[in-house]
């Protein structure tokens, strides 16, 4: 008997029951409504709200954050069996067999996300007040940010796949609007890395299209669920006999093959949203948006929605070990992919984007490990939300100081000029590389440990493969993040003449400080200690949502080997980065030097755009051209041919119409004679 069948048997027995929301949790709709109303107001009032629009834009997420905090405290005070609270808002779609109610699921998982989104979101809103100060469209920017927060909260609070999809599309729209925010040549003060308005628009479209591919998976998955189970709600409404998807799956109403198919479709959706291989290509270009957008949407929250989807759909994935294995493989591939690309990028934001991709690969990998991984994926996700958002804000601060330069080869030695940015970025950097005691050390180490865990796989060799990948990934992470940090803040100054780096205003530095504190202490407080079997505070808190607090990793290698081995690898990578980019002796050319084929490939994102172009865009272009040609020649040709034929027949039929009555009479007479002859002949024969 394999361990997997054991897992499969567990969730059905423990199918969680939702209860009707009480107290502050019943007001969960306001979490969404506050930013949504603010966005609507800012967009409808237009320029009239320019003077105070940003203030309203900041107040809305802060208010949501306070409400979210109150709800979190309320849930903490409840028994764990009462922490799955359901808010029934009303009937949403009632069409024959599909009867869907609009409801919110307030449980530890969604509240964790609510806290992450509103807290990090509020900080980034505050930062944006200063960052976007000189942009005449600052009000519109805040409207879009609020729209994003509202959509993201809808996504995580949704109680059905369809409502989740509604939020899913909402964040996609907000992402599209914000990536292409600087799509006018004239009306913005910023230019990112010399990118033109056209390039920004193209980047936003690319993100939109890549996301649509993933959305297709989501739609197919929902269709399959509806066809198989007749519902797309997660859980049945409390107090009724309705059953949700997860209840039905828990009772074994779904065959393994169907669960695998649905799981893979959900994975496709997650790949699109979370920039996982093979739909990863849009994330790097998405950096065309303003830096707070990159911090909020493309680092901390939206791109992690894919991980949320997989973890939320945990009962489905428990039913489909093969789908879960594919999730882990996708995570592992993306983890290495992003790390390799990150090692070669000179654009600070694109290097951070590659890092985000890689870190989400970690989360996907963890989520693919099943019960041992769901909680730690979320723990890493939240920790990553802190340190990556902090580093993006730091990058924004650096760009602010360097006249919107993004090329790290033209940075160097900025640490002395910008102490706040230097120290807060340093915290994020140490946190992500897994420096002992900081967030990444706990959150990433538990993923590595879980990846080495034998009870997450069917085959005995799999823990070694996935475990090694995560360790190599950790070393690469240490290298590229240290490279980024040293090239920016250490070494010799390689500034463009005429730049005078200066520290950013307080409105920008304080959010960075708060996030740095999060990077510092989050893991130690909430995470899992490598030497302990206790899963950590956040995992325990998440247990009612993702289940199995008793399932912990059983690594095939002892934890000291994993932990210290990883630390040694990280140390080596750190030393390598220091000698090449950090020390005074290191020579960092201001132009990218010729390099080995691997580095050249990594600079070009491992040819992802070329592959996409070759496999999809160019064949697609030819296919559409062929279709246009076919339409013009065959379809239109047939229509025109019919018309021409009718004209030709008409021309021939017109000739006998001479207008002479006697001729008509003669024709008729001849015709009658001919008919008589035929009739007679027929009778004779």
């Amino acid at each position: 008997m394999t361990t997997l069948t054991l897992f499969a048997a567990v969730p059905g027995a423990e199918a969680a029951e939702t209860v009707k929301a009480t107290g502050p949790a019943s007001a969960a709709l306001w979490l969404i409504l506050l930013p949504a109303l603010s966005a609507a107001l800012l967009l409808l009032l237009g320029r009239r709200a320019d003077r105070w629009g940003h203030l309203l834009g900041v107040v809305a997420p802060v208010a949501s954050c306070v409400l979210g905090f109150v709800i979190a405290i309320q849930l903490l005070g409840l028994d764990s069996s009462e922490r799955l609270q359901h808010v029934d808002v009303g009937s949403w779609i009632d069409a024959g067999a599909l009867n869907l109610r609009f409801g919110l699921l307030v449980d530890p998982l969604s509240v964790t996300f609510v806290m992450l989104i509103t807290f990090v979101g509020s900080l980034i809103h505050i930062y944006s007040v200063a960052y976007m100060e000189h942009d005449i469209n600052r009000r519109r920017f805040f409207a879009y940010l609020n729209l994003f927060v509202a959509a993201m909260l809808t996504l995580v609070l949704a109680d059905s796949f369809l409502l989740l999809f509604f939020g899913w599309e909402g964040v996609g729209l907000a992402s599209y609007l914000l990536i292409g925010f600087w799509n006018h040549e004239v009306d913005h003060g910023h230019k990112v890395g010399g990118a033109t308005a056209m390039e920004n628009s193209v980047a936003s479209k690319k993100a939109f299209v890549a996301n649509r591919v993933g959305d297709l998976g989501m739609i197919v998955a929902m269709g399959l669920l509806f066809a198989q189970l007749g519902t797309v709600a997660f859980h049945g409404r409390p107090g009724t006999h309705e059953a949700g998807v997860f209840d039905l799956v828990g009772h074994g109403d779904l065959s393994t093959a169907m669960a695998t198919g649905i799981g893979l479709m959900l994975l496709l959706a997650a790949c699109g949203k979370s920039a996982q291989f093979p739909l990863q290509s849009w994330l790097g270009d998405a950096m065309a948006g303003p830096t707070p957008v990159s911090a909020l949407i493309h680092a901390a929250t939206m791109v992690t929605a894919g991980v949320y989807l997989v973890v939320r759909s945990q009962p489905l994935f428990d039913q489909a070990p093969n789908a879960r294995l594919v999730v882990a493989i996708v995570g592992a591939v993306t983890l290495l992919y992003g790390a390799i690309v990150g090692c070669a990028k000179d654009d600070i934001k694109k290097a951070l984007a590659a890092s985000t991709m890689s870190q989400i690969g970690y989360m996907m990998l963890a989520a693919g490990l099943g019960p041992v991984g769901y909680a730690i994926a979320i723990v890493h996700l939240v920790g990553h939300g802190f340190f990556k958002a902090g580093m993006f804000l730091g990058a924004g601060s650096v760009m602010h100081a360097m006249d919107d330069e993004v090329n790290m080869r033209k940075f160097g030695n900025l640490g002395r000029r910008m102490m706040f940015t230097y120290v807060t970025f340093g915290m994020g950097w140490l946190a992500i590389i897994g420096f002992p005691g900081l967030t990444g050390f706990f959150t990433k180490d538990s993923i590595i440990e879980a990846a080495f865990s034998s009870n997450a796989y069917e085959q005995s060799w799999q823990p070694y493969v996935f475990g090694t990948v995560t360790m190599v990934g950790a070393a690469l992470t240490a290298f590229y993040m240290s490279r980024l940090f040293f090239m920016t803040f250490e070494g010799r100054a390689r500034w463009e003449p005429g730049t005078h780096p200066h520290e950013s205003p307080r409105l920008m530095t304080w959010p960075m400080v708060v996030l740095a504190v999060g990077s510092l202490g989050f893991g130690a407080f909430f995470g899992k200690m490598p030497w302990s079997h206790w899963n950590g505070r956040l995992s325990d808190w998440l247990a009612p949502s993702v289940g199995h607090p008793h399932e912990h990793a059983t690594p095939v290698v002892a934890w000291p080997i994993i932990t210290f081995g990883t630390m040694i690898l990280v140390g080596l990578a750190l030393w390598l980065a220091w000698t090449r980019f950090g020390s005074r002796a290191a020579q960092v050319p201001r132009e990218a030097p010729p390099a080995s084929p691997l580095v050249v490939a990594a600079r070009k994102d491992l040819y992802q755009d070329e592959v996409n172009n070759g496999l999809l865009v160019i064949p697609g272009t030819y296919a559409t051209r062929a279709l246009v040609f076919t339409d013009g020649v065959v379809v239109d040709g047939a229509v025109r041919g019919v018309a021409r034929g009718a004209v030709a027949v008409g021309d021939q039929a017109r000739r006998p119409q001479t207008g002479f009555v006697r001729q008509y009479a003669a024709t008729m007479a001849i015709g009658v004679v001919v008919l008589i002859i035929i009739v007679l002949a027929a009778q004779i024969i």
Partner: protein
Amino acid sequence: MNLMNYLVLSTILFSVGATTVLVRRNAIIAFMGVEMMLNATNLALVTFARINGNLHGQVLAFFVMVVAAAEVVVGLAIIVAIYRTRRSASIDDVNLLKDVRDPA
């Protein structure tokens, strides 16, 4: 008396009428040809009624007479109207109902 003779007479009368319609240009004469053909048909019909021993042919002959009367009224009115406007009773002059795409 051989009924076949009536049929022969009817055929001769019909042929004379048809030839008149085909060869004469005067509308009145052509019209008379038409009337002759109708009456030749009537003759044939009543003969057939006699041959078959029932009234079907005779009933049909009455119908033909009624229709012919109506047709004469309308037809003569048209001929008179055309003659008034065009000063011609030749049916070859009345040839406007034809292809006008290249009127040359």
